[in-house]
């Protein structure tokens, strides 16, 4: 560092600009370095070139559009060329960027393949799982959760092996394409409190839950299989469910609506089941065939099948 800021390198005094204010106030003339000035001119030249190439100046309700253009395909299949914008550039990249072309090739392959092949061909499965994860995240995760774990009582868990509407590839595809409507009426007014408890005791006993009152279970079983209650119409006499109507299998360990496994006490489990009988069930999954392409539905079906292992 120089000791005296207004000495030049060779030691001579720095000149002043020649202006004098208030009799003795002067300004030293320390010009910017030449390289700095030229770098500044460089930025000016860059800016002028940029105005011509890209959108730059607002003029009234419009703007200078520049000479750069982007060509992309519109929804109706027509090619269109527009002045450069980052949005058009993005659309162009999504349609004809190298990754987009690669993805198109794979999608083409996947649309030719059967669902069976998608699940067993190593390369196709790799692609299906990656695309499937994206499709699931965009369309299904809002209800079923990011990993398909569902929400107890509201949205089915897709990672277990209990498939209300069937877990084969074709059945899952049907569910996604057409949607499903699950319904169980409320039995609040149909039964006395004792009858409700009896039914709940029997339902719990179906999956081997310990701690029930044998007599209540007996009464519940008779009621379950009677025409008065009619539970067996949907759930079958053995309580194993009917996939044609999407009724739950009550004889397995998976509880999709009543939070049985979450209640530590028998009373809690009983209350959970009783609640479902009282309230009934009203669940709907929308149809996706008008929102997703056939190939996307196919890929999603294979992905969901792989989540829980299907059946």
């Amino acid at each position, binding site marked *: 560092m120089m000791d005296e800021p207004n000495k030049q390198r060779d030691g001579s005094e720095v000149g002043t600009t020649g202006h004098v204010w208030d009799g003795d106030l002067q300004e030293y003339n320390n010009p910017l370095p030449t390289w700095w000035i030229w770098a500044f001119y460089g930025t000016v030249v860059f800016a002028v070139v940029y105005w011509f190439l890209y959108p730059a100046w607002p003029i009234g309700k419009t703007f200078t559009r520049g000479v750069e253009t982007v060509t992309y395909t519109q929804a109706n299949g027509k090619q269109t060329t527009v002045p450069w914008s980052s949005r058009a550039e993005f659309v162009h990249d999504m349609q004809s960027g190298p990754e987009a072309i690669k993805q198109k090739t794979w999608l083409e392959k996947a649309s030719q393949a059967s669902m069976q092949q998608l699940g067993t061909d190593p390369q196709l499965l*790799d692609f299906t*799982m990656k695309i499937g994860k994206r499709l699931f995240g965009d369309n299904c995760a809002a209800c079923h*959760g990011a990993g398909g774990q569902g929400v107890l009582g509201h949205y089915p868990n897709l990672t*277990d*092996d*209990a498939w209300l509407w069937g877990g084969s590839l074709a059945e899952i595809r049907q569910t996604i394409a057409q949607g499903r409507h699950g319904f169980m009426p409320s039995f609040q007014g149909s039964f006395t409190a004792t009858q409700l408890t009896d039914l709940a005791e029997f339902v719990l006993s179906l999956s081997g839950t310990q701690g029930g009152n044998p007599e209540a279970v007996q009464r519940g079983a008779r009621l379950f299989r009677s025409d008065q209650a009619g539970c067996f119409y949907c759930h079958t006499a053995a309580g194993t469910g009917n996939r044609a109507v999407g009724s739950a299998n009550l004889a397995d360990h998976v509880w999709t609506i009543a939070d049985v496994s979450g209640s530590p006490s028998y009373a809690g489990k009983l209350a959970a089941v009783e609640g479902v009988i009282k309230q009934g069930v009203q669940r709907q999954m929308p149809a996706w065939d008008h929102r997703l392409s056939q190939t996307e539905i196919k890929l999603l079906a294979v992905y969901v099948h792989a989540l829980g292992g299907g059946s």
Partner: protein
Amino acid sequence: MAPEIPIAIYPRSVKGRFRNLKYAILILAYTVFFLLPWMRWERATGPQQAVLFDLPSRHFYFFDLVVFPQNIFWLAILLLIAALLLFFVTGIAGRVWCGYFCFQTLWTDAYLLIERWVQGERPARMRLRAHGWTAERIGKLALTHAMWLALAFWTGFTFAAYWADAPRLLTSFVSGSAPFAAYATVLLLTATTYLFAGVVREQVCTYMCPYARFQSVMFDRDTLIVSYDRNRGEGAGGRHKVTRALKSRDERQAAGHGDCIDCGYCVQVCPTGIDIRDGLQVECIHCALCVDACDGIMRNLGWRTGLIGYTSERALEGGRTRFFKLKTWGYGAALLLAALLLVNSVATRAAFDASVRQTRQPLTVMLSDGSIQNSYAIVVNNTSVHDLELRVGVVGLAGASMSVQPADEIELHPEESLTIYVKLRLTLQAKAPKRIPFDFALVPEEGASAPLKVPSQFYTR
């Protein structure tokens, strides 16, 4: 006082053993650097280039070794070895890296050769400059710079050729269809090579190189340095030119003068333009060309050589240089350890590697029969040059049943990567712990290579 103008350095050529050593290293380094990317190599799969850093597919080929991104720690060890080697060598032999091996030294040396070939020896070059802008000077300068640029370009292109198929890159480069990165790399390296080796030269070492700044901390009294023997050279009465009265050593010693005849040859040959007789300086890259120069003069005079030589501070003070110190042993041991680690790791690398990713949404699933299911995605990389057939198994998780997608037995082509999806089902015993550690065993068919065990865990709730 006029502003200081940097004095242009016109290093004179010199003959001698250190010069020969420098030529040998220059030829070796240039041969390796310029020929390696053109060397072909037979491989069952992959490119037919001996050394290729394939960035797009993230495979790095060194003859029969294929390095994958997950081997990045090899690079870390390699850099560690390079650093330790530098410390080790510097501690013993001083700035030999600077003097003989540094790219800046090598390329500047080559550029000086071109300069001397076109413009002549030091006096001719100085005369050329003194005569101003004559047609001869302009012509010779143009030829020099053209040749410098040509070497710079070929240096840049050779570097780029390590990252792509060299012959194909050359044709696409000439026809204008090479990737932008290739042009940018070649342009940048051409510019920097030309600038640093041709124009800036020794100023890179003096002002830009960080190593010149911190190498002194590796020095001690036993480190070899190029040094002038002041006692012998100066004598009591200082150095003196050879005159009629001061011709023989006896005459000179009688008059109190030392062996240095002040011929200035050691200064003229110095590529960084210093006078070694002023002692150890940061600019000195220890290339020992002044040693060659002085030894040549001493031999002509029939006197003992070594007035300037590789010596140490301790030796200069009359002691004996101790090469094997605690520091040397320490650096040596660390260097050996790192080298063994690298060699062992490269030699025993598996034919494939795998990593397990456990599905966490949800971590555990209750199945209809009351058993618990955990899901895993295993990414397997075939890092060999052979086809690989694998079977997935589980070790240490008694009673578990397993389903694998896409298939129980998977086949991987060389350098291929695949994700396999595994579901494990376990019927819980009473008092099962929350987490059961186990291993996935990936077993190659027909004992092609050792099975790989990848640790994982099974969550029960």
